[in-house]
């Protein structure tokens, strides 16, 4: 267990120090939110209706942006080889690694989503729920991005490929995270909470399954 905490802490530290930390994804997320009213028009009703969906889409795209550097450096600088040789379960190691990096790079997204919700005309409670649903979706999004990144590590300019692999897999998290916000918009708070729980379930399921896929990809690369 302590080994996994070490991996988690180290990956978070490296992502913070070397990768620019959370600034990139946060700025990207903000940029995505900002261009929407400019493209679809400033009508308040339309923006309110779109708010939760836009937050989920922007988060998905921001996570996809981080995917390429999750494994590319490790694959080329020999770190992956070392990780695979450590006396630690590769799946747990993959989980700790991806969550560690994501904790450093994605942590501000739920807060920005809340701010975005208010900018789109949602009330405070609705915006908070949008942020919470997004927070619940982030582990799933991060692990799927990690999986796509592990598959495509070492491919030159693999960003597009990673997006193509990751986006279809992220659909369930996207549906439930934005669904929760839309339910809150319609005033159906019971359904909103239930959907937040569904989002959490998707994340937990992904946490249980995806590390094995990532570990298999890590091993396939070194073998």
């Amino acid at each position, binding site marked *: 267990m*302590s*080994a996994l905490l*070490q*991996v988690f802490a*180290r990956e978070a530290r*490296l992502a913070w*120090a*070397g990768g620019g930390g959370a600034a990139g994804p946060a700025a990207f997320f903000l940029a995505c939110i900002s261009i929407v009213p400019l493209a679809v028009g400033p009508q308040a009703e339309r923006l309110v209706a779109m708010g939760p969906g836009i937050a989920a889409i922007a988060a998905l795209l921001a996570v996809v942006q981080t995917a390429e550097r999750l494994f590319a*450096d490790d694959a*080329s*600088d*020999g*770190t992956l*080889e*070392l990780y*695979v*040789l*450590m*006396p*630690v379960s590769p799946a747990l190691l993959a989980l700790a690694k991806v969550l560690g990096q994501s904790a450093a790079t994605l942590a501000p997204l739920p807060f920005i989503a809340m701010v975005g919700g208010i900018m789109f005309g949602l009330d405070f409670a609705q915006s908070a729920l949008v942020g919470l649903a997004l927070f619940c979706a982030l582990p799933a999004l991060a692990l799927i991005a990690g999986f796509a990144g592990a598959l495509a590590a070492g491919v030159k300019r693999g960003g597009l490929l990673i997006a193509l692999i990751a986006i279809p897999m992220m659909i369930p998290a996207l549906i439930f995270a934005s669904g929760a916000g839309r339910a809150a918009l319609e005033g159906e708070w019971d359904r909103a909470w239930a959907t937040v729980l569904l989002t959490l379930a998707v994340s937990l399921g992904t946490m249980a399954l995806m590390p094995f896929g990532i570990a298999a990809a890590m*091993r396939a690369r*070194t*073998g």
Partner: protein
Amino acid sequence: MTQIVEVLPDLAPFESFALKVADLTLSRGDLRLVEGLNLSLSSGDAVFLMGANGTGKTTFLHALAGLVRPDRGQIMLGDTPLDPEASEWIGWLGHVDGLKPNETVRETLRFWAGLQGERKPPIMPVLKALDIGHLIDRPTGRLSRGQQRRVAFARVAVANRPLWLLDEPAGPLDQRGRDRLAELVAWHRGRGGIVIAATHQTLDWPGAETLELIR
């Protein structure tokens, strides 16, 4: 030489063990690299794997580490066939260093040793033995290629593993670096460890055998 013996910690010797490779056959894709290779080593031995590029030196090391499944044959560590659990045995130096430029030497070594269950790795003595003790708090990105190689090698030396698998350990090292490397290898063998190194030129390791791989 005497200086090193003073610097390096006097760790308990490893339990005596043997590494046996029988009829090992390896390929990469459709290309057969190693065919019917036999090798038997016991505590204190050292072997150079030599051969031109593309003869399978690295693949052989990967197979010994359990990273590559052989087409045929067996690798035995002691009485048990090698399996991925053998990572408890292996100290690995890949052909790239596996360093992160923003991490200091100390952070790097402590992290990897910790992951291998070493609570008190002898970081400073090993770094001193490699002549880089003064660099301990420097980020590895600000070291020269030769110094980085020494840090990568120190990562193997501080973890208490009996079987060292080294891929081009002396690559960017100068003569002095090579001497230091040889001394650490001698120290490891003195404890009853085994060292296998893929290399282009023979290094000055007393009593080391050479295994030439041919296409």
